[in-house]
């Protein structure tokens, strides 16, 4: 593989972002979207080329440094690319979804004054995400990691006059920084134990490191590998929104919908999963860390899904679904089925981006109304959006044959087969999660597209809409730039699982990228029972997942189509549960009412009590009083004199110095 191709893939979006961002006024709206769309489109085609070269032509893995970032203490830190099949797959997914989102944005943001700025940001995001997945060392990974975080910060706060948006973006950044705090300690530990930041060198030392311990607390030796892995995983928890660091993701929906699809569903939030897979040579040596990954992931998968059941904002429902699905991917990594985690990441990227963009299409038709209680019956007005959204929903709940089915069923099987501590708990979480997933997904479908039309009275009550794009009556299908990406994404959402599960999960696809010890090899175990996709579908009839999903859809149908008064009745019966879910398990309350005020008041106390009272007041008290006294005298002296005097001093000093020099 040629390094110039890879460099082009990375630099095209960066240059496009710079042009749209810095020269947006000169190139205009059309200029901005043409430049960025074609740059990202070209990056997609070149990524496909890279993947093809690796998979079909069998070229060796690319691993080269571009330049030396710095050398310190004999440790050479480089910026370089590692492109194996894992990376190439991520590159294709990222650039494909990004391209769809770029095209979609042309329609979605067409009236927005920040049009060029938006294109600049999403192209910059594509660059950052590519740097992240193509890194061949920890430092560059961290660079991409933080860079996507910053772009996400800028995009959540894109509509910067909205107080809720600028609250959400600060929250997102800070919560991510808590994760990064762990991440950077993990990186520091890696350098300490291996003396390198290069993946290859670090991973090759992993077996040697296994026996080393560190006493974080005196007299309590911990496995060094566990410490490294847990620190790194804290980073992944922030970026991939695992409990309890999940709180930023639902709020990130304050950003425009295209970025919810691109960043907060398909790509950035999956960076943590990618990192776990990339770090598999390390995690495999720490049972403790794997258990933690498994339990955190399982908890996230089940409990965040429940929150999706009670939300009425169409985007937030999809966001809770994303949280839950990220939990699934994490569980896969915890069970050492990294390949399945990445496989689910890929299928999820397509169908979740599809669901978000479909939600955005509905939001356009509803004139930026996001409350599902004010929708309903939209299927006859928006047939393309409806059908593509339905396909995405079927993929999400794991309908046999759809892409989500292959990844999710394989995932559940893998967890079932795992022996890692916590696997039983995780198994029940992901299994019950299937029912929850089907329920909230079809609740959304039914509330939005089926049933009575509830938007008419809303429009009447609202009077007029402030967006000014011809209100005149019924909602209608979105323009082609909006529905075309839906169709483009629907194709892989349906088909990709069928065609790729065999090579990606059970083949040798990730053999160079992911390493699994024999004891953890659940995927290898599943492979013994693999007899092709058709047999896999048939096999689903023997498991619980299929029936749970069907039950979820049926329940949704009963509650939201057949007997619409049921939800209220359930809510009345289970008031406490409803309250718990509506309040998001009180995580936000805890952070906003306890943690944040506490931190602020500690700062305030240290300032007023420590700096001003103790240091300035007490310690400097005597001198402070004399300072005041001197100041009183100085005030009587005309400042001009004082100042001339001082200048005379300097001049005198220079003269003296010069004279002494000349004399000698």
């Amino acid at each position, binding site marked *: 593989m040629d390094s110039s191709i890879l460099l082009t893939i990375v630099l095209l979006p960066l240059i496009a972002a710079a042009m749209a961002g810095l020269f947006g006024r000169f190139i205009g709206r059309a200029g901005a979207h043409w430049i960025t769309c074609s740059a990202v489109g070209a990056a997609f085609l070149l990524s496909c080329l890279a993947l093809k070269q690796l998979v079909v032509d069998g070229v060796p893995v690319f691993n080269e440094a571009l330049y030396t970032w710095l050398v310190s203490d004999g440790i050479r830190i480089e910026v370089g690319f590692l492109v194996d099949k894992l990376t190439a797959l991520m590159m294709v997914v990222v650039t494909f979804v990004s391209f769809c989102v770029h095209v979609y944005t042309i329609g979605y943001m067409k009236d927005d004054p920040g049009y060029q700025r938006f294109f600049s940001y999403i192209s910059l995001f594509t660059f950052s995400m590519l740097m992240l997945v193509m890194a061949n060392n920890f430092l560059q990974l*961290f660079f991409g990691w933080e860079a996507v975080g910053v772009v996400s910060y800028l995009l959540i706060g894109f509509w910067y006059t909205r107080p809720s948006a600028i609250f959400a973006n600060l929250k997102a950044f800070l919560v991510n920084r808590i994760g990064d705090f762990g991440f950077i300690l993990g990186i520091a*530990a890696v350098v*300490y134990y291996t003396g390198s930041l290069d993946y290859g060198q670090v991973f090759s030392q992993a077996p040697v490191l296994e026996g080393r311990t560190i006493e974080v607390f005196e007299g309590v030796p911990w496995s060094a590998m566990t410490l490294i892995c847990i620190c790194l995983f804290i980073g992944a928890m922030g970026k991939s929104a695992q409990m309890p660091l999940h709180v930023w993701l639902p709020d990130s929906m304050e950003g425009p919908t295209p970025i919810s699809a691109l960043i907060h569903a398909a790509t950035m939030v999956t960076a943590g999963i990618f990192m776990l897979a990339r770090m598999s040579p390390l995690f495999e040596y720490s049972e403790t860390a794997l258990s933690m990954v498994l339990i955190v992931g399982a908890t996230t998968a089940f409990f965040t899904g429940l929150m999706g059941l009670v939300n009425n904002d169409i985007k937030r429902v999809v966001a809770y679904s994303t949280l839950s699905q990220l939990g699934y991917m994490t569980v896969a990594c915890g069970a050492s089925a990294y390949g399945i985690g990445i496989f689910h990441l890929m299928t999820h990227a397509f169908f979740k981006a599809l669901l978000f963009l479909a939600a955005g299409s509905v939001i356009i038709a509803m004139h930026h109304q996001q409350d599902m209680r004010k929708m309903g019956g939209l299927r006859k007005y928006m047939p393309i959006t409806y059908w593509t959204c339905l396909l995405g929903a079927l993929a999400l709940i794991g309908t046999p044959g759809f892409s989500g089915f292959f990844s999710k069923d394989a995932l559940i099987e893998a967890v079932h087969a795992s022996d890692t501590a916590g696997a039983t708990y995780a198994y029940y979480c992901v299994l019950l999660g299937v029912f929850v997933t089907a329920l909230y997904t079809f609740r959304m479908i039914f509330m939005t597209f089926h049933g009575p039309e509830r938007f008419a009275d809303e429009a009447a009550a609202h009077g007029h809409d402030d967006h000014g794009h011809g209100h005149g009556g019924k909602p209608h299908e979105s323009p082609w730039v909006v529905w075309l990406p839906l169709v483009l994404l629907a194709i892989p959402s349906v088909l990709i699982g069928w065609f790729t599960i065999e090579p990606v999960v059970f083949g040798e696809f990730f053999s160079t990228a992911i390493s699994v010890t024999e004891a953890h090899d659940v995927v290898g175990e599943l492979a013994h029972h693999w007899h092709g996709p058709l047999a896999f579908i048939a096999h689903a009839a023997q498991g619980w997942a299929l029936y749970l999903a069907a039950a979820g859809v049926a329940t949704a149908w009963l509650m939201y189509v057949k007997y619409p008064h049921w939800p209220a009745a359930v809510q009345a019966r289970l008031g406490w549960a409803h309250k718990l879910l509506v309040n998001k398990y009180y995580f936000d309350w805890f952070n906003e009412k306890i943690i944040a005020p506490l931190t602020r008041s500690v700062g305030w106390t*240290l300032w007023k009590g420590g700096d001003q009272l103790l240091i300035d007041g007490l310690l400097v008290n005597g001198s402070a009083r004399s300072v005041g006294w001197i100041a009183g005298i100085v005030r009587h002296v005309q400042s001009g004199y004082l100042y001339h005097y001082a200048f005379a001093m*300097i001049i005198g000093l220079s003269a003296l110095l010069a004279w002494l020099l000349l004399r*000698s």
Partner: protein
Amino acid sequence: MGNFGHLSFLVWLPILGGVAVLLLGERRAAMGRWAALAIALVAFVASVPLFCDFDGASAAMQFVERMPWITALNADYALGVDGISMPLIVLTTFLTVLVVIAGWTVTEKRVTQYFAAFLIMEGLMVGVFASLDALLFYVFWEAMLIPMFIIIGVWGGPRRVYATIKFFLYTFLGSVLMLVALIYMFIQTQAILPGGSYSIAAFHALPLGMTEQVLIFLALLLAFAVKVPMWPVHTWLPDAHVEAPTGGSVILAAIMLKMGGYGFLRFSLPIAPDASRELDWLIIGLSLIAVVYISLVALAQQDMKKLIAYSSIAHMGFVTLGAFLAYDIQANTGALAGAAMGLDGAMVQMISHGLISGAMFLCVGVMYDRLHSREISAYGGVVNRMPIFAAFMVLFALANAGLPGTSGFVGEFLVIVASFHANFWYALLAATTLILGAAYTLWMVKRVIFGPVANDGVAALKDLNGREFLVLGVLAVSVLALGVYPAPLLEKMHGTIEQLVHLMTLSKLGGL
């Protein structure tokens, strides 16, 4: 290494040029401005070869000049640079140009005097970094206070007199003990060299017992700790910053604070290595307090300049932390791997903080010039009226929060990694800056820059003019360049840092 007065030129051109500008008088203010700019530019251009022609592999002093100065005291007029002082000198000449441009129309009273003060200041600061003779160093060190004293006292805010006196007393009292220590060491050198010597290199080689080292260390500590500033002798800084004019704040934060860090590297560590080893817990403890305690205090600030001042103290904590890690690393691992990284980090942090804090103060200055308030609550939604300015401000804020790809990350990263070699908890506490630094900086950005237009004052704001754009643009490019490609800077420091690790870990007690 005979050199044609390169460093002397950099010291004396601004000082003499400043005097010349002063002599132009107020009536020729316009000419004074241009003259000041020309002098600052020439000094900067003249400092570039210092970087380019510097041999980073060598630990030796370069561009050395030496002449007898006060023969009675054996004090020499000796100048030279190594990998520690050279980058700081280039930073000084670079920032002075920007400060002159930034102050172009800001000052209306005593224009030529204003520019003269900054030029003289520049020469004296270069002198501090370039001195190879301790007495010469001390003269520059103290003389430097005068222009800064004047800058705050004359062009400062309403409480300027209080702030100046506090600033002066703190820094002056701090340095008095340093003079005592320097004289003591001079006397000690008489045992070795005929007539004694004030050469800093001679001090490095001076055999000293433990008690002497501890006393010298503590005397120097006070001088340097006040300058850095370290907790608990930091309270002069927020006051000085708040009252100083924008240019004064920039120089104060960007260069003067670095003198403290430079002092530790040049004097404390190599002169008193055993005392440094003995007392490193003190410095490390105070550094970590700076990172955690001061960051929390920064969170509580309502005045933008105070917030950035506290942020400076927190960031300087990384400098002192990185500088003193070697001993604990040796105790923990039995080797020195990571020690040079800590020093590298300390140095990069100094340069980077110079750029970023300078830029942050200039940003506040841009807003202050328009609305005459530094209160966070007086702003809100600035981005609506000043989008270009907002873009710069957000970039510098992110750099201040240590974003990778900006210079702010490099030093913090190296120090955190190095401190892990010494102790897990050091690294953990240092790494809290990722959270706290982002919290106080971006919270300020949220309240000042984002949101709807807060009041009529903000509604009337005009975006950057060409001059402001130029200054912030140059800084933005520098911050990004150093963040993306710091290797050249570290290459230049390599030899000197290796040498310093050697000196600071070499016991002086064996020979006694």
